[in-house]
Each structure stands twice: as C-alpha cells, then as structure tokens.
C-alpha cells in the first residue's frame, strides 16, 4: 500500500498541478467577473447563451461537429479503399498523409492563399473559373459600354466605362461595325471612326423584333458584322459587357466556415486514411471474394461487407475527430481574415478573444473553457469506455 503511494505519487502530483488544479480554478474563475474580484454567479454562463457573438460561435461549432468529422471519415475511407487497390499505394499514401506533417499555422497560411478571391492568385477560384468558363463564354469586353445608343448607320462606338446598352434602329441593310471609339495618342472624335481606332472582334450582335431575338451573329476580326435586313432592331446584348464570373468569395462571411472545414479535411484525411487502411488490412480478403461470388457489385461489397467490418475503426476515427473539432482554434484564427473572424468564430477562438483579445474578461473566458470541457467530455468518456472494453 505504501509502496503503491510512492510509485503513484509523482504522477499524481503532476496530474494535480497540471490538470486537476487548472480545471478547478477555471470553474471557480468562471463565477467571477472580468476583474476577478466580484462574484457574479452564473452571469457569465448566461452571457454565453445570450450574446450574439458566442451564439454564432456555438452555431459554428455545431456546423463543425456535423460536417468535419463525417467528411474526414468519408475522405479517409475513400482514400483507404482506393489506395488498397493500386500498385504505388505507399507513395500515394505518403502524399495524402503529408499535410499531417505541416503545422496548422503553416497549413492555414497556405490555404489562405488557396482561397484568395482573385482567380489569378487563389487556386480554388482559378479552378472554378476555368471550369465555369469551359461551359459558359467569358464576356468578351467586361466593363465596357456603348458611347451612344443612337447610331443610324448600325455602327456601335464602345468606350471603357460600363453603362446599359439598349439597342439601335437598323435603317439600312443589316451590316455595321463595332469599334473602340478611342484613338491612341488622342485626337479622336466621339462617334466617328478615326484613323487608328480598332474594330472589336467577338462581340455578340442581335437582331430583335417585338422583344424576340430573330437573328444573331458575332463581329469579325475587324469588328464588322452582317445581319439580314428587315424590320428589326439591332442591339449589343449586355452579356458582352457583363462582369465575368470570378468564383466564390471563400473567406467572405457566408461560406468562411465551410471553407475552413475544407482545409481541415485536407489536413486530417491522411490521418483517417492511415487508420482505416490498417483496419482494411485486417479484413479477411475472402469475405470480399465471397460477397462477389454471392452476386454483389463492387459498391455492394463496399457498403454491405467492407464498411460493416470497418465499423469499429470508423467509429474511433469519427469520435477522435469530434473531440478534435470541438477544440478547433488555430486554423480559424489563421484562415479567417480579421473582418470575418466574428462570422467564423468558434468557442475556442471566442474563449481566446474574450480572455486575451482586448476585453480581457477572464471570467467569461473561463466560462467558455468550462463549456468546451463539458462538450468534449462525452466523446472522451465514449473513447475511454471503448478502450477499456478492448483492453
């Protein structure tokens, strides 16, 4: 008995100093105000559930818990199953696992560049815009406008400032020209095709009668176009001068949380993959072969034989991720620009913000810490019980 105390002693002292005491002190501190002198009872907790800022943080945390662990588990399962079937599995696994070797801070900085709104700088928008423009034509002259909608000769003078373009009456024939009414070096007259002024190729021109498009064409290399003559109006549709699609404002207030979750999945998918791969290796191959012979398609084999046998591993990964996600802090701090930090807020970040970010309300911060502790507790207990059952 005495010897047991001697052996356990140092560990118990350390645990008490580093775990039990801080928890106890945080709980006590959460009952006091920002100055640490005035006892406020549960007022700090009341504030958590009333102040819009912390409510946003709680809501975001809920989004995190719903999305991130499941996405990480699904991505890990996906990679594990695929790498299980290819030749260079180890090399691929290393690449997918590599993000784990990067600090969250560095990953956050990297992803901030990825999510850069300008498609010329952020790869996410560059990809989306490229795909978008493959299916829809990019407006040929974004931001340009017509100098005048009144042109009897079917000639359209275009200048560089946006404005609505309604249309023009085609009087003679159906041909005309669209040109840039600007002479380099100056000296050009408005509405007149001066020497040195260039025709604009690739502009859409429509012939409209009674609000319906009856004919359309695009201007040639010199800006000329030809449409059939008749009783219709010739116009340049707005789509010529519309602003191009520039992708998604990833770090804007509306999608910042899903965007950060995307970065989080990128970091943790490799970890999930490694655990699930290990689980996959433990499944007897013959059960999969038996299922194939029993008439299962590959999808049915995965869903009805592989995944059920992987269940214990998937649960471990998912619960571990839940614990991890509740505590998420650094990635949000680094990724969310200052302006949208309030929209991307999570409990751990809010705790830090109220405690050390100007207000220095350690009482409210402690209350948030206690709340976080209570949220993580069930998941921890679940994992502990599993461990005990397996041990």
């Amino acid at each position: 008995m005495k010897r047991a105390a001697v052996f356990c002693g140092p560990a118990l002292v350390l645990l008490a100093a580093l775990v039990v005491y801080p928890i106890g002190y945080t709980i006590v501190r959460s009952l006091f105000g920002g100055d640490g002198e005035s006892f406020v009872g549960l007022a700090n907790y009341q504030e958590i559930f009333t102040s819009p800022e912390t409510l946003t943080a709680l809501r975001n945390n809920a989004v995190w818990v719903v999305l991130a662990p499941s996405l990480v588990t699904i991505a890990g399962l996906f990679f594990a199953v695929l790498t299980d079937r290819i030749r260079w599995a180890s090399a691929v696994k290393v690449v997918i696992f590599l993000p784990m070797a990067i600090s969250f801070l560095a990953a956050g900085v990297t992803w901030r560049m990825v999510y850069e709104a300008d498609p010329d700088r952020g790869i996410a928008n560059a990809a989306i815009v490229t795909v978008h423009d493959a299916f829809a034509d990019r407006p040929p002259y974004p931001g340009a406008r017509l100098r005048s909608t009144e042109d009897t000769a079917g000639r359209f003078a275009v200048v560089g400032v946006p404005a609505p373009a309604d249309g023009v009456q085609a009087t003679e024939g159906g041909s005309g020209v669209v040109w840039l009414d600007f002479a380099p070096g100056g000296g050009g007259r408005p509405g007149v095709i001066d020497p040195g002024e260039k025709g604009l190729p690739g502009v859409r021109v429509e012939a409209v009668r009674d609000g319906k498009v009856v004919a359309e064409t695009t201007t040639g290399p010199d800006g000329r176009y030809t449409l059939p003559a008749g009783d219709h109006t010739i116009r340049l549709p707005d789509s010529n001068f519309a602003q191009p699609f520039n992708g998604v404002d990833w770090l804007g207030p509306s999608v910042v949380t899903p965007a950060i979750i995307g970065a989080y999945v990128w970091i943790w998918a490799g970890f999930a993959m490694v655990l699930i791969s290990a689980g996959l290796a433990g499944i007897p191959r013959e059960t999969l072969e038996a299922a194939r012979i029993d008439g299962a398609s590959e999808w049915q084999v995965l869903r009805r034989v592989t995944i059920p046998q992987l269940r214990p591993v998937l649960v471990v990964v998912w619960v571990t991720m839940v614990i991890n996600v509740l505590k998420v802090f650094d990635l949000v701090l680094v990724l969310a620009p200052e302006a949208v930090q309030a929209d991307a807020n999570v409990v751990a970040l809010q705790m830090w913000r109220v405690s050390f970010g100007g207000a220095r309300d350690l009482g409210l911060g402690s209350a948030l810490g206690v709340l976080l502790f209570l949220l993580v507790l069930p998941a921890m207990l679940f994992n502990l019980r599993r461990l005990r059952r397996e041990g």
Partner: protein
Amino acid sequence: MATVSYKGATRRYPGTTRNAVDKLDLEIGDGEFLVLVGPSGCGKSTSLRMLAGLEDVDEGAILIEGKDVTNLPPKDRDIAMVFQNYALYPHMTVYENMAFALKLRKTSKDEIDRRVKEAAKLLQLEEYLSRKPKALSGGQRQRVAMGRAIVREPQVFLMDEPLSNLDAKLRVQTRSQIASLQKNLGITTVYVTHDQVEAMTMGHRVAVMLDGVLQQVDTPRNLYDSPANVFVAGFIGSPAMNIKTVTLGADGARFGSMLMPLTREQVTAAGDGKVTVGFRPEDTDLVAPSEGGLPIVVDLVEELGSDAYVYGHADVNGEQERFTVRTDGRSAPSLGDTVYVKPRGAHHHVFHAETGVRIA
C-alpha cells in the same frame, strides 16, 4: 447443374516465368464431383479461382454449361464457393449469412426464409440461425459456409479445402457428409484439396496436378491401379509407393539379389539400361529367407493396430535404398531385424527411367 470445361486455360502471375496454371484442359460432367489434388503450389487453387472468376485467365477459355464465362465477373457465373477459412460475414447472423446472396438477387422474403430454413435443417443449423459466426465452433462455421452455398442452388459448387481447418475426426465425418450431400443435390462440384485421402474418398474423378500441369484425371480406382507417371504413383496412396530406379536386365528389373520380372514389351519400352519400378507397401509379403525376397533391415515400425508399417533400408546395387512395407499388426518385426520382402503378383508399376511415363 451444369458441365464445366477448361479449354487450355492458363494463368501467369505478373513477374513470374512459370505459368501458375499451364494449358489446363479438363471436362467436368453434369452432376460430377471432381477433386483437384496436388502438393501446395501446384495450381489447384488457382484453377478453382479461375473458374470462380477471382483470378484472370491469361490464355484459353472456361465454359460453364457450354457458355463462355472467361471474362464474366464472379457474380454473373452462377456459382457458389466454400472457402478454406469459410469467409463468413462476421457482422451478420447465420441466417443473414445464408440469405445474403438471395437478398442481392431480390428474392422474395418468403422464398428466402423457406430456402434458408431448409438448408439449416439439412445441416442441423436450425438452433444457431440467430447467432453470429464468432459464437460458433469450427465445425458449425464450416456448415454455415456450406449452407450459404446450398441456398443459392447454383450451377456449380466450388470448394477450396473446406475441411482443412477442422480436427482430424470431424474432418472424416464431414467428408462423408459433403459427399452424400453432393450426391443428393446432384450439383456439379469442383473440390480442391491437398489431401489425397480426401480426394480418393470423395471424388467421382480425381485430377492430379503438379507445377501447374495436369498430370492425370481418372477415377480413384484407376489412379491407384494405373498411375500415369511416377509423380502420380508416388502421390496417390498412403504410405507412398516404393519407387526405385534400378538396372534393367533381359528379363526384369534387378533389385540387388531380387529380380522383378517384366514382360518383353516392358523391357523393350524401357530402353537402355535403367528402369523405374514401383510397388505399394500394401502389395508386399514378408517371406522366408529362402524364397528370394529383398532383404531389408528394419529402421522403424509404426503400429496402427490392424496393420503395421515397416520402414527399412536395403542394399540395392550398391546403394542404400529406403523401403516401406505394410504387414499384419500382430506379427510385426522388431527394430534391427532383417526381413525378406517380396512384391506381390503383378501389382508392380513400371515407368520409363527418364521420362517417368508409365510403361503398360
């Protein structure tokens, strides 16, 4: 119920020089129980897995009921397979294990229930239907694996060493159960084993393989009585046949002082100087020294009760050769004794000394 044909079926694993299965030609009749047997690595399991669709066929074709299935996935071949480790789905109950294939085919609930219950009754699994596989004994798991195959009512049963995870006694018992079950169901069965006793007792016909090459296909009786080559002769029968390559005389093979008479045709076919002769341990008699047997010094005696196996060595043309002889258990010789062994009648087998092919 169906016929199965292998037509020059070949399997070559990437990165190997030798074919795992080399131009296998085999016709299996409707309702037949065919056993593939051979030492480990001979390609018997690979042949079965090619038929199952779990292994690619690099050359040749495989037909089931005349239909080319060479490039069909397993699920389109209408076959059922029993694996060595049973491969039961651990997360499903016995009932669900057996119902799985039928569920995938969208069989009606009543029909599934009827067929699973029927198979369970046949295999005495009725009281275990709601258990998970891990709560079953090895023998019960084996029966569930059988049941899973039976409920399918497939065209062909494939069995890959289904008994090798059972203990010896249960194996003998299950062996006869599988054989009679197959007889009652009448479903064409291909059965893989490395155990020649299993092969001999269960198969209508037995195909012996070595190094990916089919050596001989015949009834158990014929395999035993007239093995096609030295390998089959040595593989079939337990204990193994005594096979020695000895000097060829004008009227027979010379085992030291003993002459084993051969016919004139055999001597001619054997060719120059040497001949391989085999006789089974059970086709011998112990005789008195004066009767011209081969003198063998006893090294070991295995008493089996009814019989005794005598292992010994003899000096044959200057070489120490080992021999095995079966005798009556009650009159077994002792260690160190010299016994005189005489092969019985015309039960010896003659092979070409170089090619190993049987000389009739």
